């Protein structure tokens, strides 16, 4: 949003007053739309979830006691406000289960993000350095898997990774292994599933920042005697950093809450926060506690990212 504001501000150098006003209005509208989007699709749902997290379970429809009932007017609202309780949040601290689940999810997401970066960077680099005529085709190939259902693609990996699956059959027929590898239902399978599923989210932002890069800088470095690997780390990689950050965030954030891939490919021993939330919501029918789990997850994700973005913005300003 800050970017939009920055680019929109200097463009108010029009001649007539009404035109200027109109343009100002349009500019403001452009800024307002994303904020409205955030308000309706992020803040309002978040407040609803937060409200449920402060209530208690009940055998009723819906299955929790009402909190902050606005129907009684301001006095009822204030009375409700005094009754707010954070029991559900203290509950989460009393059992190591929740903490472990958060940590496991963050670790799995971090490792998967690193792996996705390692796999995705060469792909994006190759695409960006490919002749301009075939780049659209390559881009198409990256997007193509989206045309098949995500669920079916994850299911397909069961067929590939299972003990009698395609991978083991191939390796055994080539006499590379004599015993089938156990991959399905392990953490390895989860990493494979996440890297495969989220690869396009890593490749696309990387590609867009690598493609814009001025390659003559690398040529200049090499002319001045810098070895290719040195030139990569000194020039290409730092210039692609915005793409790296965007790609990593796009992979890391959904991977933390991932439910389908660990469920289908991972073993039962995998304790991730998505499954814990599912248990609270569906097995215990405890909507308030599951809402509290979701609120904490959101805080765990957004607060570090907000600090990170602030730090980045500061670094950029200093860089100027």
């Amino acid at each position, binding site marked *: 949003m800050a970017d939009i504001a920055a680019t929109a501000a200097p463009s108010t150098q029009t001649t007539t007053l009404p035109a200027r006003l109109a343009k100002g209005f349009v500019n403001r509208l452009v800024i307002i739309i994303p904020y409205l989007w955030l308000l309706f699709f992020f803040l309002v749902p978040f407040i609803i979830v937060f409200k449920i997290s402060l209530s208690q379970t009940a055998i009723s429809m819906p299955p929790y006691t009402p909190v902050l009932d606005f129907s009684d007017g301001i006095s009822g609202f204030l009375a409700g406000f005094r009754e707010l309780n954070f029991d559900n949040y203290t509950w989460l601290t009393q059992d190591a289960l929740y903490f472990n689940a958060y940590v496991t999810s963050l670790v799995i997401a971090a490792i998967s993000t690193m792996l996705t970066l390692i796999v995705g960077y060469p792909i994006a680099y190759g695409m960006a350095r490919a002749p301009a005529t075939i780049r659209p085709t390559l881009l198409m190939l990256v997007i193509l898997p989206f045309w098949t259902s995500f669920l079916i693609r994850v299911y397909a990996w069961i067929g590939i990774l*299972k003990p009698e699956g395609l991978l083991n059959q191939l390796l055994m027929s080539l006499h590379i292994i004599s015993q089938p590898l156990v991959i399905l239902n392990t953490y390895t399978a989860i990493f494979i599933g996440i890297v495969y599923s989220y690869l396009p989210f890593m490749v696309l932002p990387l590609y867009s920042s690598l493609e814009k890069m001025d390659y003559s800088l690398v040529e200049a470095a090499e002319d001045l005697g810098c070895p290719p690997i040195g030139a990569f780390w000194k020039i290409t990689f730092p210039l692609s950093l915005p793409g790296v950050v965007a790609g990593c965030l796009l992979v890391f954030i959904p991977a933390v809450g991932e439910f389908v891939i660990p469920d289908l490919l991972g073993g039962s021993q995998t304790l991730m926060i998505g499954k814990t939330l599912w248990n609270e919501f569906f097995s215990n029918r405890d909507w308030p506690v599951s809402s509290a789990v979701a609120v904490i997850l959101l805080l765990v994700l957004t607060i570090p990212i907000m600090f990170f973005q602030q730090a980045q913005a500061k670094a950029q300003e200093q860089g100027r």
Partner: protein
Amino acid sequence: MIRKALWLSATSVFLTLFTAGGHAEDRVVNVYNWSDYIDSSIIDDFTKKTGIKVVYDTFDSNEILETKLLAGGSGYDVVVPSANFLARQIQAGVFQKLDKSKLPNISNMWDVISERTAKYDPGNEYSVNYMWGTVGLGYNVKKVTAALGADKIDSWDVFFNPDKLAKLKDCGVYVLDSPADIIPAALKYLGLDPNSTSPDDIAKAEEALLKVRPYIRKFHSSEYINALANGDICLAIGWSGDVFQARNRAEEAKQGVEIGYSVPKEGAQMWFDQMAIPADAPHVAEALEFINYMMTPEVIAKSSNYVLYANGNKASQQFVDKAILEDTSVYPDAETIKKLYTVKPYDPKTQRVITRTWTKIVTGQ
């Protein structure tokens, strides 16, 4: 004149269309049932007979259905939850009492089943049985024979005895990811009351399950259907109907996989899928007509012949295929039925203990 005639006929056509449209709109019933759980010709026959259009929608887990019902305003007229879910949903005020005067076919129901469903729905006031089954052992006949040297398994011992289960580890063991189905089985195997909510008993069940945990490949409530059918696993604790589905898929695939299902001799848990009408159902009269139609002996027998589950309709048994009626894994004999047990839904506190115990068994944490 001609113009006037044309005008009149156009008006009448328009009016007929309009009234016909309006009529059809009145006579609709929105049914929400498990996926792949009815012979679709039954729905067509119902519409032909009554003129009521059926909007048929499916779900694949009780949890999804329950969430929709608890949130309210689902718009469904007939839903088919399992009895243990139904019991709690009744308490939450999700359903309305059935007007029995509109359900003359209720006299066809089977008292053996109605007595048991009354534990969940006292007096069967809110629901009517659709299908029922058991929680038992699905197995790959060849692989289990090879591993254990017995061509048939008929006891929980094959699962709860670590020495036996260890032999099946390599060919693969799946277990329902459903504590309400597995913990009572463990209690039954230990000779305890499967309905026990005492923390001591639950701890004993936990201990028994932790002993065999190393030999279990995965806890999952649906993957075992395909895994059994493909020959990827050799033993699964599963719902009878799912195992029959796996058996049929294996037969269709003709890969030489033969699937058996056994109701353990110590006793197995029964499950019931019950037809009920949500309190806020928009088409109650049509819903009652639909439920009544589903209790017609020929109709429900047709459904059983298609989905291969036993139904709770005594009068329908003469129309059920002999092969299904005589298959004791579908319709257990009177002796076995006596040993089958039902499990009452847990109160929220016990539910928490059960879920927590289950997480520990499954994930080790």
